[in-house]
């Protein structure tokens, strides 16, 4: 894939099982099987073949879609088995030719998305009662093993062939890009020296040794493999609290009307300004007050406002990341009735135990996290008529800076801007660092968090919000236009790289978690290595892969 083809092909994140090229989904009561069967000739870009169950972004878009549908459309599924349809190959990881030809920007976006998808697998196992079991029925190399690592339980076929490996370093002179190193030591708790050995053994580790080193949980001979996988899947399903007989919530295709400069969904639109390199995402509140009970909500399926909005926001974020690399700043705005938003917010919390509502809250959690790790400047503008309340207010705390209008614009009759906190802002949507956004914002000043908590339910106007340090600046209409113009012009003049680095550093305060390590180290180490001649130079390993020529490394340590 040349940079030209990457930039000319618009990536689409909407798909459905009927259109899958690379995955088969099958169901057996509480157990679903997600089988990787990559179609070699169906790569998203024309210049590589997806041999050996290797993947590109297209394969991962389908995986992400399947995971989402398993959550919403299959309340009855309690265990998901990931396996491969190929004979001896589980998955060879990300396609090397695809990587070698991709622009740096695409590689980064690709790795980020695949990471988010792996994280969402773990999220399902941990919070949705939908546990992932990986049946490694062939060799799992690199990204293939990293995919397996996202599952809760790994069963490796012990047939003298199937191995798990992370061969990136000996083979390609890059790092495993999907959290493999972190998950080895943090999740699997593989001893660090053994991990060192493992990561430098190209052919990987098989059978009992893989179990001894904790690389997998079990190694099972071919004859007993399927049976054992079934049994384990059943056992895991037994621990789930998902309902057996709930109505599924079908995820219909998202309707959107996209032009060069704007895109309109039902509860969201974004507008692109190429001059200031910004995209303004305007979120709409619910079109009506919530009058329904749970049954009424389930009946609305994916049209239930919080779910519909989350899907649209998710789609917009992915679109802007992949298809609009030059747009450096995302501006969040909202329009709607604060009270209506709060009625939904309350409803969600009152019914948080219900499987569907739980899924919706989890989806918002993941979408907010997607915002957190987006390599673009994030601003929120809180203007008259906006509805940043409850879970929508989380957007205000996700951004790098927030600006709130004090009073009204001249000749504007809309209600003064208000910000309203709810319990949504205090526990429900942790960031990757496992702190809430307010805890991150007020890191080291619990008093401010407590103070904010005391403001739950209060309709905060700009001076109140500023006094409680909930917004960066409150500006009156006299200053607004000019301040905002200058803010955007100034931002657009800085180095995008430096901004990405600064923002990522400042967004994640406090403790490291597996997730923050995965994203942080991806950004810091992998992206550095991806730029270095030892990987991508003419003599670099990634460039020469498959050519039979050995890479010639610059031997200096940096």
């Amino acid at each position, binding site marked *: 894939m040349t940079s030209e083809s990457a930039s000319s092909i618009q990536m689409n994140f909407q798909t459905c099982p009927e259109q899958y090229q690379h995955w088969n989904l099958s169901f057996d009561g509480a157990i679903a099987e997600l089988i990787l069967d990559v179609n070699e000739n169906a790569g998203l870009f024309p210049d590589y073949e997806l041999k050996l169950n290797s993947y590109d972004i297209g394969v991962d878009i389908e995986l992400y879609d399947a995971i989402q549908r398993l959550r919403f459309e299959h309340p009855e599924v309690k265990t998901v088995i990931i396996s491969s349809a190929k004979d001896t190959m589980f998955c060879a990881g990300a396609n090397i030719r695809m990587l070698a030809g991709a622009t740096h920007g695409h590689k980064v976006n690709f790795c980020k998305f695949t990471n988010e998808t792996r994280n969402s697998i773990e999220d399902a196992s941990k919070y949705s009662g939908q546990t992932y079991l990986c049946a490694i029925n062939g060799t799992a190399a690199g990204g293939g093993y990293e995919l397996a690592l996202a599952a809760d339980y790994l069963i490796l076929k012990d047939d003298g062939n199937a191995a798990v490996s992370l061969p990136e370093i000996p083979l390609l002179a890059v790092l495993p890009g999907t959290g493999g190193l972190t998950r080895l030591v943090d999740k699997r708790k593989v001893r660090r020296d053994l991990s060192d050995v493992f990561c430098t053994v190209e052919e990987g580790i098989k059978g009992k040794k893989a179990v001894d080193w904790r690389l997998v949980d079990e190694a099972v001979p071919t004859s007993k493999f399927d049976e054992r996988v079934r049994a384990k899947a059943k056992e895991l399903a037994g621990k789930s609290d998902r309902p057996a007989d709930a109505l599924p919530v079908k995820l219909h295709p998202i309707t959107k009307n996209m032009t060069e400069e704007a895109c309109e969904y039902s509860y969201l639109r974004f507008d692109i300004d190429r001059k200031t390199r910004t995209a303004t995402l305007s979120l709409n509140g619910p079109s009506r007050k919530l009058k329904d009970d749970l049954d009424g909500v389930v009946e609305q399926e994916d049209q239930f406002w919080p779910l519909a909005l989350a899907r649209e926001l998710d789609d917009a974020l992915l679109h802007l990341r992949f298809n609009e690399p030059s747009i450096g700043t995302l501006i969040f705005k909202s329009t709607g009735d604060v009270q209506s938003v709060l009625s939904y917010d309350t409803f969600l919390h009152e019914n948080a135990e219900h499987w569907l509502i739980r899924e919706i809250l989890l989806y918002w959690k993941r979408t907010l996290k997607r915002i957190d790790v987006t390599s673009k400047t994030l601003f929120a503008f809180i203007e008259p008529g906006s509805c940043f309340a409850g879970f929508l207010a989380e957007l205000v705390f996700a951004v790098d800076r927030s600006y709130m209008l004090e009073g009204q614009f001249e000749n504007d009759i809309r209600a003064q801007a208000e910000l309203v906190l709810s319990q949504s802002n205090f526990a429900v949507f942790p960031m990757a660092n496992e702190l809430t956004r307010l805890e991150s914002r007020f890191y080291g000043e619990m008093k401010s968090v407590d103070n904010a908590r005391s403001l739950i339910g209060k309709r905060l106007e700009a001076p109140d919000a500023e006094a409680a340090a909930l917004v960066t*600046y409150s*500006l*009156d209409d*006299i*200053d607004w236009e*000019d*301040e905002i*113009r*200058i*803010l*955007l*012009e*100034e*931002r*657009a*003049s800085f180095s995008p790289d430096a901004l990405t680095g600064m923002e990522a550093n400042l967004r994640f305060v406090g403790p490291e978690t597996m997730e923050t390590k995965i994203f942080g180290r991806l950004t810091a180490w992998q992206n550095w290595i991806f730029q270095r001649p030892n990987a991508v130079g003419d003599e670099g390993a990634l460039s020469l892969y498959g050519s039979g020529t050995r890479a010639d490394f610059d031997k200096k340590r940096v």
Partner: protein
Amino acid sequence: MNKVDYDNLIPNNVDLSSDRRLQKALEKWHPGYIDWWKQMGPDGFQDIDVYLRTAVSVDQEGWAKFGYVKMPEYRWGILLAPQEEGRKIGFGQHIGEPVWQEVPGEYRAMLRRLIVIQGDTEPASVEQQRYLGHTAPSLYDMRNVFQVNVEEGRHLWAMVYLLHKYFGRDGRDEAEDLLMRRSGDKDTPRILGAFNEETPDWLSFFMFTTFTDRDSKMQLEALANSGFDPLARTTRFMLTEEGHHMFVGRTGVERVIRRACELIKENGIHDPSDVGAIRGLGVVDLPTLQKKINFHYSVTLDLFGAEISTNASNAFNASLKGRFREFSIMDDHLLHDSTYPVLKNIDGKFVKVHEPAINAVNGRLCDDYIDDCEQVMTTWNRVIKEYGIDYKLSLPHRAFNRKLGEFSDTYATPSGEIISADEWQSCQGEWLPDNDDLHYLLSLMQQVIEPGKYANWISPPRTGINGQSGDFEYVRIAA
């Protein structure tokens, strides 16, 4: 809140009465400014009528209205030189583009910094000069220092206007800070060194307005062709006032020289360097004048910043701050490939080194300043010559007594010999005013307030202000 009649209170040509943003900002800043003036403006003369010039508009009619006014009631105005239709940017990377009427976001910080640095010097000099009224050698001079002071106040207004109008909240904060810093204060000093020096006596004042206000002139000239049009227009109007400040300085020193020469001649003193004899006459001797020149000139050179400066080249490249009289320079106004000779100390010798011109913008402004100062020296020496006295005042070498730039580590004599640190230590008293000199000058400072009378150490001016007669009561002290 009462609706204030802004246009009457504050002479302006910026449509203040319909500019809500500006009104809002001024509502808060204006009382603070008046407080500052009362606290830090001329000490002891706040309730006295002073014959001052007020600019009420920028045309011929309005730029010089004379009348008695109590200084806190002075009508400080916001006046910009008229907008030129279709003006284009004349230098730097934006050359040829229409000038900006709004701050370009990418240059916001750089522009704000330029404006704050310029703005900070204005109240600083008022603070430095606040006690001079008590030792004024005449009502004429007293009035002049007050005129300079109110105009420096207006220059502060001019910069604050830009901050208020174009820099929003940050601008208001910066404008506030301009009133909080204090010249010479340990904790909250003014930004630039020379503006924290004392102005204890009138010779210092005249030297300051000769040399340091001339630096202001150079800075304003460099900003007067800025791509940011409001800044260019503001500074162009400020230059007319700066001209008067330099006039006060240059003629002040000239009158000091004239009086000294007069008495030297009258008393038949043959050696113009006979300090003791000349001081016996109660006037300022020429060697002390030379030392004062050495001091004020060298300290002011430091205000230009390093000759080779990336800040300056960034500001030039960004089309924010040009060179002196940019438009009369015959080059491409981009400076991508040209060089400029910069004097350096290389292995103990002064050598001109060709540096990329874009990096030497400060050095060049400094050169232009030096040329300007040379002309002042010529007029002063003409007076000495008039009296047939064999003495010549001169500017010291540019490496002399420098704390900043190319020569910050060089010890040089006024004539430009490079010397050792030890030699500098033992000789600097010969070149710079020492305590004796300063005490002597202070001893001369006696207030003279009888209309038409002048202290012994200074001659009367050639003409009065606004054509007033010799015994005009410029400041109504008696009442």
